[in-house]
């Protein structure tokens, strides 16, 4: 099937694969919380049951259990009781089916701590901030790191001797440590930049010039703390790839032909790029994880911060919603990189099987 369109076939294959992975991710998101000893209803009851009679406590508990889909209800939404007046538990499998149905329709349940509030509302408020911070910093960090790595490989000498150890050191600094160093030095000691939040607390979000200026001002430190660390790691990978490519026959041949340096560099870049792209696909998950922690250091109002608040207050449904969204976006990012590889890799165009993944 689709033999004459190998690229399309490849993309479809990857798409199906990622969809299956997505279903597994939903299953993980459903199963893992249920392995622990924490129960959202108990957490809510601890808050809600103060000063209530036994009868009222029982009713409240049942209504929460109904809310979380733990007990059977009739078609009209009335709680079913058995002969002893006890509620009937929904089987784990049916719970999963309900969870799957709800998740696929975008309903992530209700927050435990901010009870009637929908998890999806909390997430929708946070996502734009996370996107605005992570997308540019990861992308630009990746590009900058690769250019630096290619230069280090090509020039060697002093350039390499300075950049390589620096890049190696940068890549071993944890995201949150570097974030704290930046905050301490540039915000606390020097006072050049604000340490926290995404905009000045004195302003209301609007499209005014003042607000956008404040946003840009607050953007600098978190941006650089992700950008520089990422660039370090990428530069190291690209340097190894570049040095490897420099030893190959086609580069030697190009040099003998007397091609211009920039021309040779562009060949080198193109060939070293593919493994780097594959590397990107594999490490997006950990990059996003690190960037989420950076948000927490800077109290940047994105997903990371929403998750931190939820962790601090045992708000399990919110944690679950955030992790599902993070996993989903990592899968989408991976899929996009795979599509790019499909267009760039001549082996895919020729319809050959890709090695490894």
């Amino acid at each position, binding site marked *: 099937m689709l033999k004459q369109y190998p690229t399309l076939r490849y993309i479809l294959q990857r798409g199906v694969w*990622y969809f299956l*992975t997505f279903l*597994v*991710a939903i299953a*993980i*998101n459903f199963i*893992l*919380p249920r*392995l*622990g*000893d*924490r129960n959202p209803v108990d957490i809510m009851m601890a808050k809600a049951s103060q000063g209530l009679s036994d009868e009222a406590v029982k009713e409240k508990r049942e209504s929460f259990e109904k809310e979380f889909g733990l007990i059977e209800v009739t078609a009209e939404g009335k709680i079913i009781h058995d002969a002893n007046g006890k509620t009937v538990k929904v089987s784990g499998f049916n719970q999963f089916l309900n969870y799957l149905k709800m998740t696929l329709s975008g309903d992530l349940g209700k927050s435990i701590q901010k009870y009637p509030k929908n998890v999806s509302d909390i997430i929708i408020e946070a996502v734009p901030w996370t996107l605005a911070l992570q997308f540019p910093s990861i992308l630009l960090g990746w590009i900058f790191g690769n250019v630096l790595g290619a230069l280090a490989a090509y020039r060697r000498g002093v350039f390499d001797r300075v950049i390589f*150890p620096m890049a*190696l*050191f940068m*890549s*071993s*600094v*944890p*995201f*949150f*440590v570097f974030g*704290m*160093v930046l*905050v*301490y030095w540039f915000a*606390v*000691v020097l006072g050049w930049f604000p*340490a926290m939040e995404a905009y000045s607390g004195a302003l209301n979000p609007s499209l005014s010039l003042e607000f956008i200026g404040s946003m840009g001002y607050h953007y600098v430190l978190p941006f650089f703390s992700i950008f520089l660390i990422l660039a370090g790691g990428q530069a*190291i990978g690209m340097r*190894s790839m570049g*040095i*490897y490519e420099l*030893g190959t026959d086609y580069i030697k041949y190009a040099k003998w032909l007397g091609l211009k340096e920039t021309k040779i560099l562009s060949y080198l870049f193109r060939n070293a790029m593919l493994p780097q792209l594959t590397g990107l696909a*594999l490490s997006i*998950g*950990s990059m*996003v*994880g*690190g960037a989420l*922690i950076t948000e*927490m*250091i800077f109290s940047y109002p994105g997903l990371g911060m929403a*998750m*931190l608040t939820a*962790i*601090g207050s*045992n708000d*399990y449904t919110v*944690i*679950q919603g955030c*992790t599902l969204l*993070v*996993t989903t976006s*990592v*899968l989408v990012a*991976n899929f996009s990189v795979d599509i790019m590889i499909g267009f760039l890799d001549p082996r895919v165009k020729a319809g050959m099987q890709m*090695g*490894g*993944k």
Partner: protein
Amino acid sequence: MKLLRNLLKSPMFVIGAVLFFGTILFAIFAPFFIDLKTAMDRVGGQYLEPSGSFWLGTDDLGRDYVKLLLQGLRSSLYVGFLAGVLATTVGTLVGIYGGFKGGIIDDILNMFTNLFIVIPSFVVLILVSASLEQGRSLTIIALLIGATTWPWTARSVRAQASSLKSRDHISLARINGANTLQIIYKHILPYLASYVFMVFIMQVASGILSESAISMIGLGPMDNVSLGVILNQAKNAGALGDGIWWGIFPASIIITVIVFALFLINNSMEGVFNPRLRK
């Protein structure tokens, strides 16, 4: 031996190895001189500056940072090694089996490997840690990290093993009547040993990083102090905003130095095994 001599010629390796083994020796032997039993005791006021009696000051609960950091260093190394050993063992077994045997079991193992590489491991870590109320211990966190990072080892070992499979000396051994176990033990493992060791080094580093990250966001071990837990407490007590550098930088520097040392070792080994990088 020749390998070791080559490695010792690389200044990067020497620096990395000295830093790393120095840290390990310190973590093992320092408790003979610094009494760790009193690490959790209040010994002075809140956030005392570093001085002659408290070299690195005290934390928000008046505890001596020298003792806390030593305890934290030991915890972090423990987590790193336990997670690294688990991930390397499982990953190597899965990788060798998959790469060498092939067939449907390999397909299934490979699918799992790829699945858990794209599903971010910190998501799994957060979900499990947040659902454990009691019993979130150092050992459990280490095992969790190991259980989420083995696919990385499996993936690279599998690639190496399947490229070794079609080499001549393997076919020769097979003609001579060696069975699969013998071939793996005698003719595959020696080739993979250095490679597996390099991946192990990276797994230890990522174990230490993962533990400190998960502790940093407040889901750390409840039974012990780790470097991440120290940072989390300092952050929650507002040490960063108040400019209390001794609450944040010593722990940060220790984590960074250990990871940097491991990266140096790994990178210099790559340079020795891949002669092109050496020139």
